[in-house]
């Protein structure tokens, strides 16, 4: 082989090697430039492994609630959430939620998501349910939700007397809740009662707001029999274990104020009030130190109100009661009875429940004259007069029962009033008799003091509250004339259509002050993300629930304030049932399935061009190899 030939062969070999190296290098470089495009997977996620698992709980008892919770449970896998469903005995549920320290999850004996129902008042104060200083076990903020702006709105609304401003705060609060969704309001059922068709004077409002049995009557009947699903235990109005005990007692023992037909406060025992001079009150909400002292574990959450501000509020109110209010035994009511009733009711030793807010707002009292009581403000509150009220009992009869000391609670429970032996109030009905688990019977007060003030006398001679636990049995009792009215707590909406078609039966409906909702444990690592909460809200078919489970007797819900209340924010619409939107929200929260498409590209060129150039380089390399070998062979042969 001559030198020239060697040179040619070397050049060709270099070309060959360069081509091979280039082709290999080129291929690697292009592979590194592949783009992985994630195309959102918009179909049902339920066939695929869930992003996370949670447990939904609901108390046994309300069939519609049980059914809708199960319906929601079936929807959640479609957005990638595996949800177990547990129906719990009420005591178990209460323990998991209201004794829950710093947000334990279901597996730690707390909860993740719960189906529940609240009944809020006409004059709402959602502070205790939503404010961060009211987290359980101190208050009822079971969700452990903390939002500084919401805290501010709640704190301001609680002490603002100007209703227009208060409405502004509460509307903003509702907007925040609608966005943050610690509560996801599902539906608001209509209250429904069923009566014989001759029943008259029924206002159709829930008992807590405006039940006034004195206005009820049935032409030609002297006795009204009202069927209830729950028992009444004890006659002590300050201590009640069922709504019916409270309700029945309301007809006997009266309060200072009542609701008029428009749900505004109107005087009952009270005649007028006079505000005292204003003073500056220390912040009414709990600060860090107070929470630490009351429930050290809660403070470990490091959330409490930083927004406590002093409040200017009247130091006291002088409350004047009407003259000539007579107890059933003929003795006139005085301011002494009011003071003694207030003191007895708030005393911790008497163990009367249900007066948390009353205990807060009542700051003691002193008698001004026979009909006037000066009541000091314990805590400023926008609805101070409404909250600073309770049923008035006669001191001359029950004044010997101790209201302080270790034996007070026992003595009250054993007292004649609780046992139904001496039950004396001032209302339009007088207590007649009762038998445990059977009935309460009241009779008309023939000397009712209210007549001279235009208050209605009892429209029937006797009023009987009869216990019938089973709805179908109560319905038969109504149809056979054994009872005249079925209470709303029988969940009559489920059989509303059927009842409407039954001859001789009349249905009564009214908007409800409560709502059914899901609430979330915001300390659960998944549910802490508001987009997850919003996604769950979007996979609830609220209208379907109302149409199919409530028979149309209700409305889809969104707001944790009662619809009939002046504070209800009408601008907020319920979340529509939209699984695609729910999946988008899950995406925003960081949970989404994708279809992965690979695209191969060359810098500055199309994917196809990149593929061609690689092939070309390989072909050039192979051709160069063949040519090099051929030339080398020919040169060798020539030599």
């Amino acid at each position, binding site marked *: 082989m001559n030198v020239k030939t060697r040179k040619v062969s070397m050049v060709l070999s270099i070309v060959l090697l360069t081509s091979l190296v280039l082709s290999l290098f080129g291929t690697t470089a292009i592979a590194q430039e592949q783009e992985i495009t994630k195309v959102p997977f918009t179909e049902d996620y339920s066939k695929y492994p869930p992003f996370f698992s949670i447990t939904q709980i609901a108390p046994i008892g309300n069939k519609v609630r049980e059914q809708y919770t199960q319906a929601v449970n079936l929807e959640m896998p479609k957005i990638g959430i595996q949800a177990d469903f547990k129906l719990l005995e009420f005591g178990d549920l*209460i323990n998991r939620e209201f*004794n829950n320290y710093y947000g334990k999850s279901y597996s730690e004996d707390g909860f993740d998501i719960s189906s529940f129902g609240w009944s809020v008042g006409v004059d709402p104060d959602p502070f205790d349910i939503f404010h961060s200083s009211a987290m359980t076990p101190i208050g009822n903020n079971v969700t452990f939700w903390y939002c500084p702006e919401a805290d501010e709105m709640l704190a301001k609304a609680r002490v603002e007397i100007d209703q227009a401003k208060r409405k502004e705060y509460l509307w903003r609060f509702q907007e925040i809740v609608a966005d943050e969704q610690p509560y996801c309001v599902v539906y608001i059922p209509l209250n429904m009662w069923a009566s014989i068709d001759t029943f008259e004077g029924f206002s159709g409002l829930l008992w807590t707001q405006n039940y006034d049995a004195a206005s009820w009557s049935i032409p030609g009947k002297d006795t009204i029999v009202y069927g209830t699903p729950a028992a009444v235990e004890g006659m002590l109005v300050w201590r009640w274990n069922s709504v019916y005990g409270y309700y029945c007692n309301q007809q006997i023992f009266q309060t200072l104020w009542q609701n008029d037909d428009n749900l505004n406060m109107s005087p009952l025992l009270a005649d007028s009030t006079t505000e005292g001079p204003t003073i500056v009150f220390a912040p009414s909400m709990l600060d860090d130190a107070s929470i630490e002292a009351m429930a050290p574990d809660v403070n470990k959450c490091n959330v409490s109100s930083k927004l406590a501000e002093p409040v200017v509020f009247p130091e006291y109110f002088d409350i004047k009661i009407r003259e000539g209010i007579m107890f059933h035994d003929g003795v006139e009511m005085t301011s002494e009875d009011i003071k003694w009733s207030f003191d007895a009711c708030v005393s911790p030793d008497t163990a009367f429940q249900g007066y948390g807010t009353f205990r807060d707002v009542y700051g003691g009292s002193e008698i001004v004259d026979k009909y006037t009581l000066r009541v000091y403000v314990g805590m400023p509150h926008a609805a101070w007069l409404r909250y600073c009220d309770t049923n008035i009992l006669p001191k001359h009869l029950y004044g010997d029962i101790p209201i302080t000391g270790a034996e007070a609670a026992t003595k009250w429970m054993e007292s004649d009033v609780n046992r139904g032996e001496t039950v004396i109030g001032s209302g339009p009905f007088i207590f007649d008799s009762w038998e445990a*688990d059977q009935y309460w019977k009241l009779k008309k007060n023939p000397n009712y003091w209210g007549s001279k003030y235009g208050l209605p006398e009892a429209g029937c001679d006797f009023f009987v509250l009869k216990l019938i636990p089973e709805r179908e049995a109560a319905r038969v009792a109504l149809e056979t004339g*054994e009872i005249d009215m079925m209470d709303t707590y029988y969940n009559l909406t489920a059989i509303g259509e059927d009842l409407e078609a039954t001859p001789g039966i009349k249905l009564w409906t009214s908007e409800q002050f409560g709502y059914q909702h899901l609430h979330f444990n915001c300390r659960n690592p998944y549910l802490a993300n508001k987009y997850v909460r919003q996604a769950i809200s979007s996979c609830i078919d609220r209208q379907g629930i109302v149409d199919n489970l409530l028979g149309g007797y209700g409305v889809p819900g969104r707001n944790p304030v009662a619809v009939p209340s002046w504070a209800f924010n009408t601008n907020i619409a319920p979340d529509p049932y939209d699984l695609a939107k729910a999946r988008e929200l899950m995406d925003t929260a960081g949970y989404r399935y994708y279809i992965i498409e690979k695209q191969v590209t060359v810098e500055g060129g199309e994917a196809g061009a990149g593929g061609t150039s690689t092939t070309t380089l390989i072909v050039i390399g192979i051709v160069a190899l063949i040519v090099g070998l051929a030339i080398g062979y020919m040169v060798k042969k020539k030599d």
Partner: protein
Amino acid sequence: MGMREYILKRVILIIPMLMGISFIVFMLMYLMPGDAVDLMLALQPDTDPAYVAHIKSIYGLDKPWYIQYFYWLKQFATFNLGSSFLSGRDVSEEIGARVVNTLSYQLLAVVFSIGVAIPAGIVSAVRQYSKTDNLVMTAALLGVSFPIFFLGLMNIFIFALILGWLPSGGAHSTVFLGKDIPHDFSYYFDYLKHLALPTLTLGLASTAYNARLVRSSMLNVLREDYIMTARAKGLKERIVIYKHALRNAMLPVITVTGMQIALTLGGAPITETVFSWPGLGKYFVYAIQHRDYFVIVGITVVLGTLILVANVLIDISYKWLDPRVEF
């Protein structure tokens, strides 16, 4: 051991058994989440934990369960069952107001059941595979298939709504409710009318079971040699059936009836709920739901005593039915 010694021994044994029952129930109660104060105050606003602790201390709920049990046991030794947390009344008073109501329909149901099941079972056995037998057994099969709840509602629909013969529930009509109502004949007749449907429902359910049992027991006995001997002696068929066969066939029936008393008392909450009957069963469930501890233990002790006494009576009846039985 003679009958007298046996009865005495059984009666004495009731006491440690009741103590054992009450101990287990007390322990189980405290395994349930929450107590009466938790349930009472949970939904109220501003439940200051210090206030909750104060209320619990008032009722002794702050103490360990075994200390509370010890206190209860001390009271029980003086026949004091304590006070109801919910109503404040003595537990014995609460139970007394309801136990008669429960026993009245339970005992009537047993009487009804035995009164119907024995003749039906005998007829079925004697006329095995006849139309009567098929009819009785089909009815019995339906009877054991229906849950009490359903049977109760069906009876309400038929007898109260459609026929209008009986009241749908409760213990008294409205006209007999009140403190000034005289407890005369019409008052008690009204009570009996209200008693009819719970009795019928509970009775029908156990009749169906007992009729099948009497039939099978009778069929076994009728195949025994001594029955053939009795017939061979020329005794009348009625005497063979009622004197020789039935007496022996009743032994398993009595045993099962004894067990049924416990079962029907356990099922009382369902019957009493359906018929709004003011008895112990419904009250027991209410007490459990509200964690009224002393009431729960009190009712358990009373029901336990009733069941134990019923078992002693059944043991005695064995001796009466079959003198060969030795204790």
